[in-house]
């Protein structure tokens, strides 16, 4: 990829233009920031209005409020209690954030998967059964593979029949819920002898101030960031989700990219299923235990600035979105709000975040 050969000839294609414009040739090249600070400033300017920055500010404000409340009244609002912190930061947030990243990557590519919750049930049961029979390593592989296969089945239906993913995966969500009963029967699948020290260390170990789940979130978050924001395949996902025909015109194959997005989605859901299964040691078939995850995962992505129409979203935004939802849920529990208020407040958060993102979308420059 050489530099443009036209530099020495001046402008090759010149439109009729005002004279003041002619005096400004090379105005963009010369304005490229060279210092680290300059580049940082430019990045900040163009990151504004893309979701993650705004939602991070909201979260910082909320956190500051929680910390203040907890310092004033450690007994009344036990946010800073080590048990609470560990539960929220190391258990709830990582699982929702990984699911949010899964849903978010798929949404960026322009698709949904509403069978996420029932798929967790199915994957977890596969993981439990295989681990019991063949040990944790094979179990992990089977759990992730199950997630990928489920997503690829859903994805193929969506991509090849062109049925809207909302309808196709809504139908498939009932299918996978039923399938989990078909493979397992109605009694819960339980981890017994296979839940040994290795498995706990890998997926649920308490290291004092943090747990294994948080380590996984950091690893997956970093990999996802490089994939989505720096890898060309990630760039193609934004392109396909943002404007499918433009991407196709430039010889990106939208079907292939969408299927890859479904595959990654499935792998991440499979992994989150394992985290959930190891933490609770069992899984109830039928999907009712995990159905909330479907919409919470999409909510985390939306709160974090992911567009429901595709083409827009960020890894940091989604993780912050998941954290925000879990923090609100935790705050309501600590404030002893009755159970049904929790969904009410989460619902309000999602709607406000969407309106906020919609407004910000117009401001993006």
């Amino acid at each position: 990829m050489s530099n443009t050969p036209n530099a020495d000839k001046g402008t090759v294609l010149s439109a009729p233009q005002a004279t003041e414009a002619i005096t400004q040739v090379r105005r963009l090249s010369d304005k490229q920031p060279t210092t680290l600070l300059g580049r940082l400033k430019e990045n900040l300017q163009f990151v504004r209005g893309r979701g993650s920055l705004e939602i991070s500010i909201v979260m910082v404000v909320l956190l500051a409020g929680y910390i203040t409340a907890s310092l004033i009244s450690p007994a009344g609002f036990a946010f800073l209690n080590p048990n609470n912190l560990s539960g929220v930061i190391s258990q709830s947030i990582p699982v929702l954030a990984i699911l949010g990243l899964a849903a978010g990557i798929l949404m960026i590519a322009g698709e949904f998967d509403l069978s996420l919750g029932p798929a967790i049930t199915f994957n977890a049961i596969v993981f439990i059964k295989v681990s019991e029979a063949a040990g944790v390593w094979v179990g992990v592989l089977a759990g992730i593979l199950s997630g990928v296969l489920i997503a690829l089945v859903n994805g193929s239906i969506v991509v090849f029949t062109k049925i809207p993913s909302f309808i196709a995966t809504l139908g498939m969500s009932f299918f996978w819920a039923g399938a989990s009963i078909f493979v397992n029967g109605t009694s819960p699948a339980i981890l017994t002898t296979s839940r040994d020290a290795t498995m706990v260390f890998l997926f649920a170990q308490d290291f004092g101030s943090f747990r294994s789940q948080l380590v996984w979130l950091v690893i997956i978050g970093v990999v996802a960031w490089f994939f989505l924001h720096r890898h060309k395949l990630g760039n193609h996902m934004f392109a396909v989700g943002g404007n499918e025909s433009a991407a196709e015109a430039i010889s990106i194959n939208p079907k292939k990219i969408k299927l890859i997005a479904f595959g990654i989605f499935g792998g991440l859901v499979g992994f989150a299923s394992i985290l959930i299964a190891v933490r609770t040691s069992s899984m109830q078939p039928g999907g009712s235990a995990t159905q909330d995850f479907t919409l919470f995962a999409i909510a985390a992505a939306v709160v974090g600035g992911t567009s429901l129409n595709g083409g827009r979203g960020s890894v940091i935004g989604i993780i912050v979105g998941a954290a925000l939802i879990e923090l609100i849920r935790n705050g309501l529990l600590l404030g002893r709000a009755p159970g049904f208020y929790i969904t009410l407040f989460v619902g309000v958060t999602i709607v406000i975040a969407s309106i906020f993102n919609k407004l910000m979308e117009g401001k993006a420059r």
Partner: protein
Amino acid sequence: MSSALLSIKGVTKKYGPNTVLNDVSFEIGKNEVVGLLGDNGAGKSTLVKIMSGVVEATAGEFFWDGKKVEGINREKTEELGVETIFQDSALVPQMSITRNIFMGREITNKLGLMKIKEMDAITAEVLDSVVTIEGIKSPKQLVASLSGGQAQAVAIARAVHFKRSLLILDEPTSALAVRATEALLEYLRQLKSEGVSSVLVTHNLHHAYQVCDRHIVMNHGRKILDVRKGDTSVEELTAAVVGGAEGIRKYRESKGQKND
């Protein structure tokens, strides 16, 4: 005889019982601007999709530089250097100018990670030197924040930078202001000197007549007229687009020309 850049022969496209294109043949010469005209439903869009390899023809042959190309698809046309700018959707609005310019042709390291800094620098260079676009602040700017004319110019800059040999513009002027249209037509004229052939698909005859060396008029899936600029007039093209083959006959009769 030097061979044409692109030549299609006997292209037919059927969607179920509907014949959208019926035995269409034409050539696009090197360094030539060809106007592809016709009313809505004449088959222009389908023809564009077939030329760019997005849609497969039911029958017909495709020649590039005199050589027959079998099983034409998007990968092959990409390799040959065909670039299509579809009406107001050539770019992804949610992505930056740099990412749009390098979409599908990213500069990456061995792991496939993009070299953003290098891509930004080249984009700035391209925007400065290939086309003159006023009012762009940075390569990192989102395309959503550009005007229709600026966005078209970015799409054209992309095609020039990657040395495409055939540029197909599908209704590029439909969403543009007068001044931006003027600029775009000027780019097309100058593209020739860069060795880029272009096909301008439009139903605005005046735009086409200003810049095109040759005009092809489609009507109900058939090619009804294929004339050099010197051998026709805006009036005749209008008659062809509005009235089809019958329209051309009536126009020529009224002018006292004999039909051939």
